């Protein structure tokens, strides 16, 4: 005999087990606990992406803040045609492009600050130092890429989006995505070879 499920609250469940689609529709109904889980689940990746696209900590903060505020207000219209993750990346990428356009009208970007990249919670100091060197080299190489190929490489190789999802996020075609990825990979391999 099947026991009926009891009345549910988010706090009574393991948040990791709740699918994105369920969180999205609860957050659409102003469920703040569900929205907090969405932020915790996707925030690190969105911040990581925006940080490397904007090269500036303050712009990154503004971008991610604005992206999540836009997500909160737009969730009732989120129809689930794409995954929540792709939808959030699309909002963030749009904010990134807006900030980049605004920036070209004002000042040159600030240099990437390596100190911001050290994770204080790293477990192994030796591995952390090695990883930080590698990350700094990658960050430096990424800065040299134009925004389109840089965004495509980050979304594909770091965040694991499909070509179709990247095309949706970037408002372009999959053939453009393929071309950008090919160019970005070739350049980054060359720069990492030089770093070695």
């Amino acid at each position, binding site marked *: 005999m099947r026991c009926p499920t009891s009345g549910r609250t988010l706090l009574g469940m393991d948040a990791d087990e709740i699918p994105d689609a369920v969180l999205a529709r609860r957050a659409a109904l102003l469920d703040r606990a569900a929205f907090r889980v969405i932020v915790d689940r996707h925030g*690190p990746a969105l911040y990581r992406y925006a940080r490397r696209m904007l090269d500036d900590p303050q712009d990154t903060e503004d971008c991610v*803040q604005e992206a999540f505020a836009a997500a909160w207000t737009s969730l009732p219209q989120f129809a689930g045609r794409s995954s929540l993750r792709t939808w959030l990346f699309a909002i963030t990428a749009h904010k990134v492009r807006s900030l980049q356009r605004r920036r070209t009208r004002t000042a040159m970007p600030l240099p990437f600050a390596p100190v911001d990249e050290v994770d204080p919670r790293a477990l192994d100091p030796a591995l952390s130092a090695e990883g930080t060197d590698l*990350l700094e080299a990658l960050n430096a190489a990424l800065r040299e890429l134009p925004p389109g190929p840089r965004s495509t490489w980050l979304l594909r190789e770091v965040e694991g989006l499909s070509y179709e999802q990247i095309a949706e996020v970037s408002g372009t075609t999959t053939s453009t995505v393929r071309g950008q990825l090919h160019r970005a990979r070739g350049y980054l391999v060359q720069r990492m070879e030089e770093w070695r």
Partner: protein
Amino acid sequence: MNGEQLLTQAARTLREHTDSGWVTLRDDVVAAAVRAFRPSAPVRGRLPGGELLVASAVLVSRVGSAVAEVADAGALRITCTTTADDELDRLTVELVALYGTPLVPLADKVRRAAADTVAETLGLADAPVDRVRVDVSVQDVTPDPRLL
């Protein structure tokens, strides 16, 4: 390691990396986002000394919380329509039900929970089951309770 292997390793390191900037920003992000205004139509309610206007987003949210307490059902979408005078005209609750649950009693529980919440939120003396249409639509069934 050649450049390709280094790039693969660097990508993996970056994938597992959480920027310290995010750690400090996280709480602010949630607080700022939920302060963002969701525009929605007003719904007219009653107070002992006058009238009350409640944003439809607030009404929908409260009905959503009430429906979440009904076992074996989850709200997919809740919408309400109002008259030209901002009176509540119709509330629609779209549901996903747990597979095997008898649907008619379930829909009745949801309808009652929604109507009671509308009455409480709008200051109505009785649940508006006769005056206001509360429609329940079972859109999906799932064997997985996590999807409710």
